[in-house]
């Protein structure tokens, strides 16, 4: 999932301070799962903002709405009946959702309520960790299903480096050395010879080095 964290309330208060009527829009997908911008977080943020302004003697009207997805224009259309009644929109979706709203509604300001972080997985309840950087040329087949790009602090293609100690990375004892994990897994699978293969320098154009990326499925695109 795409993970996110709510921005500091102070920053959000300053975004909406000039306005009286806000549409606070959540997203039912990734940000719901990582407890950053789903229906519940929309309710909490609306309540927090109302209280922060009430403290200053200001009443702010916040309409709450959570869309199935904010990264598809079909769902953004659901905002149309509500947009006329508000002065600004605040989105609790990832950066994709914020931009879709901005693209659809030219005359109304849109603000992000969360900081979009990374593509990650749940390590346990309440803990999410980075697993993929979307490099566009997956090499998990060579590394035992464990990604050195997302999980090695140096993004080394052929590790480990000298900073690996007792299976931990030198940046923190809480961070696993991913090349230790890769080696342990390859060994467990009896695929140690895979480790001997040198992975050549990566072509980062697929990772965004070639400009903004786009996927076109010709059979689906109209």
């Amino acid at each position, binding site marked *: 999932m795409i993970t996110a964290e709510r921005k*500091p*309330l*102070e920053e959000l208060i300053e975004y909406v301070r000039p306005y009286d009527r806000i549409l606070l829009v959540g997203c039912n997908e990734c940000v719901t799962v990582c407890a950053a911008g789903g229906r*519940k977080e929309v*309710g*909490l943020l609306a*309540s*927090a903002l*109302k*209280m*922060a302004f*009430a*403290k*200053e*003697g200001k*009443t702010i009207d916040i309409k709450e709405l959570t869309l199935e997805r904010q990264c598809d224009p079909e769902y953004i259309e659901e905002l149309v009946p509500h947009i006329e009644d508000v002065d600004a929109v605040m989105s609790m979706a990832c950066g994709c959702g914020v931009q879709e709203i901005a693209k659809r509604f030219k005359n109304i300001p849109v603000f992000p309520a969360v900081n979009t972080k990374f593509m990650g997985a749940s390590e346990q309840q309440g803990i999410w960790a980075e697993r993929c950087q979307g490099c566009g040329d997956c090499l998990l087949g060579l590394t035992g299903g464990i990604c050195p790009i997302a999980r090695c602090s140096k993004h080394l293609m052929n590790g480990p480096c000298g900073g690996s100690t007792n299976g931990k990375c030198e940046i923190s004892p809480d961070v696993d050395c991913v090349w230790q994990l890769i080696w342990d897994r390859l060994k467990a699978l009896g695929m140690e010879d895979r480790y001997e293969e040198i992975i050549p320098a990566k072509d980062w154009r697929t990772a965004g080095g070639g400009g903004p990326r786009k996927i076109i499925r010709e059979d689906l695109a109209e």
Partner: protein
Amino acid sequence: MENFEPIIVAFCCQYCPYTAADTAGTQRLCYPANLKIIRVPCAGKVDAMHILKAFEKGADGVVVAACLEGDCHFETGNIKAARRVSYIKKLMEEIGVEGERLEMVMLSAGMGDRFAEMATEVTEKIRKLGPSPINLNTSSQKQEAC
């Protein structure tokens, strides 16, 4: 301010703390009437939203009362409630409302005297803090909540 009587919402788990309130009554113990008790199936069921809404609608303080550690009927509801209360305290500080206005307590069903003590302590603490800063500017809202 001298006549300020705080409104305190107390979410009490039905198993221990709610029974502790009953025990306090059976023991004929006096405690301030400022506590408005809401019976809940487990303290772990008290959502962050319930706590924030209580403050938004005019409460000066909120208490989440759970069973003692190890005594939760749902095993860890009380521990989860304690973690949630810590999280909401931080959010309240961000809003600009003192985190001390939110209190987490753990009681057994037999602790009627402790319930009465806690009610007195919390009421005194909130009385010293004064009205919630949200209510200072929205006194009409508070009247509605009453």
